[in-house]
């Protein structure tokens, strides 16, 4: 079909240095990789209309964002679609808030990938600002979660063609966990900021404190159980109580949201997987490295993997809190519990390096910061 006259003669490629040291960012493993990690499977677009991986990245305010949602080896082998989803959006006056949504479609439901997508698109809409126009601490999370549950139920009714479908039966068709969060896109004067995290089901949130310590924001799954269970609460079914957590973040901290494909191998945040992920994610990796790392091989961990990382700048470049007039960067995290409002639970908050990162987990939501 081509005119030979228009085809330029092939020129030889330039010779390369034999040892051009390009690290292979494509394949990561933690410990025994197992055999499943190398399954090819059908392309996801052939299998069901959404790609193997969703990757996004960028900066919002002083935050650096990395997002990856990757099909697990189980779904690759079965030639079925990724049931995880994830999204980010910006909301509030002057883009003051980054909204994060990470969803894990419950694999028992045939159409759970649609539930996950609906929850993410509902909470972090791609084409219009989300409904978050107030201080996130003042948001009515009951209303937001209830609305998302209704959205999933309506979709299940439409997909099943049964307009009378009740939530419990709809959940067998499609269901999804979700972790929602609102993170201020600028620090307060002292360099700290308070994020609000709202988990439904076992999609987890963690603080990677100063690149070295994993602090759970949400309850650690299966802690103390003899036999590991995979049962979770998922929309359109509602939890008995919508719990929210206020998390104080300082310079150099990162907030990570992950579905159980990453959360399960991370475990309680103290083992080999935790140490490896902390080393990889102490600072924001490239977008491609982040996605490949989320897809790390580890034997028996074949679930879909999604993670959204939000990194704070390592050094706070605001006005000096002490008023010493130097304008120098304040290179120290704020002491825990210092900047935000009162702890409604009346607790001590969390000490760095131990226990939960959440200062408060309540059913009523934290009190407004300041």
């Amino acid at each position, binding site marked *: 079909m081509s005119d030979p006259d228009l085809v330029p003669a092939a020129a030889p490629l330039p010779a390369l240095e034999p040892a051009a040291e390009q690290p292979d960012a494509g394949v990561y493993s933690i410990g025994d990789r197992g055999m499943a990690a190398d399954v090819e499977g059908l392309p996801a677009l052939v299998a069901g209309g959404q790609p193997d991986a969703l990757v996004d990245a960028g900066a919002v305010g002083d935050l650096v964002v990395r997002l990856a949602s990757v099909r697990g080896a189980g779904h690759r082998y079965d030639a079925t679609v990724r049931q995880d989803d994830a999204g980010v959006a910006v909301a509030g006056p002057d883009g003051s808030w980054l909204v994060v949504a990470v969803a894990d479609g419950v694999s028992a439901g045939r159409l759970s990938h649609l539930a996950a997508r609906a929850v993410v698109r509902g909470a972090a809409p791609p084409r219009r600002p989300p409904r978050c126009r107030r201080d996130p601490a003042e948001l009515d999370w009951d209303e937001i979660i209830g609305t998302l*549950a209704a*959205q999933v139920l309506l979709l299940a009714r439409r997909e099943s063609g049964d307009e009378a479908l009740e939530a419990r039966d709809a959940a067998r068709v499609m269901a999804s966990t979700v972790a929602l969060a609102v993170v201020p896109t600028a620090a307060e004067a002292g360099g700290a900021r308070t994020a609000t995290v709202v988990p439904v089901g076992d999609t987890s949130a963690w603080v990677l404190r100063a690149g070295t310590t994993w602090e759970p924001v949400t309850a650690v799954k299966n802690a103390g159980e003899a036999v590991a269970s995979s049962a979770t609460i998922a929309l359109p079914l509602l939890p008995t109580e919508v719990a929210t957590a206020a998390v104080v973040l300082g310079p150099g901290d990162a907030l990570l949201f992950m579905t159980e494909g990453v959360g399960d191998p991370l475990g309680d945040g103290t083992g080999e*997987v935790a140490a490896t992920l902390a080393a990889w994610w102490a600072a924001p990796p490239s977008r491609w490295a982040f996605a490949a790392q989320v897809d790390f091989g580890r034997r028996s961990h074949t679930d879909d993997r999604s993670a959204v990382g939000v990194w704070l700048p390592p050094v706070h470049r605001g006005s000096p809190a002490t008023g010493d007039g130097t304008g120098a960067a304040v290179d120290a995290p704020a002491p825990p519990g210092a900047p935000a409002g009162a702890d409604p639970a009346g607790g001590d908050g969390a000490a760095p390096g131990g226990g939960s990162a959440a200062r408060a987990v309540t059913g009523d939501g934290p009190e407004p910061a300041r």
Partner: protein
Amino acid sequence: MSDEGIQILPFYLVADASLSMQADGKMDTLNDLLPQLRDELVRNPVVGDMVRFGLLDFSDDASVVLPLTDIRQVEVLPLLAPRGGTSFVAAFTALKAQIEADYAQLKADGFTIKRTTAVFLSDGAPTDDAAAWQQAFAALTEWDPETGQGFRLFPNLIPVGIGDCDRETLKALRHRKEGEAAMPALFMADGGNPAKAIAELIPLLIRSIVNSSLAQAGATADQGAAAKAMADTLANAEGFDVELD
């Protein structure tokens, strides 16, 4: 490199080695089963990475032929030989002890352990009395999470009948019989291939046991502020757009 958090699905085959298994080539069928299962686990790496396989046989007594192992690593698979009667008591008691021992070892090695599955393959009715084997069955399967009474490591039990077996008795061995994790009973017609049936069961088990499922959610549609918001949204559903593309 540690095995911490690597997920293990313990899978036992508990096989009848009574003398009646000699008839109609049933023992040969059983002995063909192991290599076929291994082939299946090699073929499906998702399953093979997770399943540890153990083999017990029973007659008047029971023995552990193959302790829980990655069957892909075993070069020479054992062959079963028939002997004596059919004691379900011996089978259930040995299986319970082996589950406990293997669990302790796996736990010490840092693995995350999923609910055990056991396939119970027999061609006959028990030769011990009903009260005795039913008591041994209860000791293996009953667990009350409220009181902590019973066997917390109880297995999911799938009875497989071959030949001219007592179907009602074998069906009673299904565990659990109800709910999301209800187990089937399989019966092989003459010439049926139990290896193929069992091999096909394993990926299904992986999906039902390992993949996420729904917990009993707390709230129903008439409780709580979130439920009210959900009901309000549903009531005004017209013109509500679910954005997907």
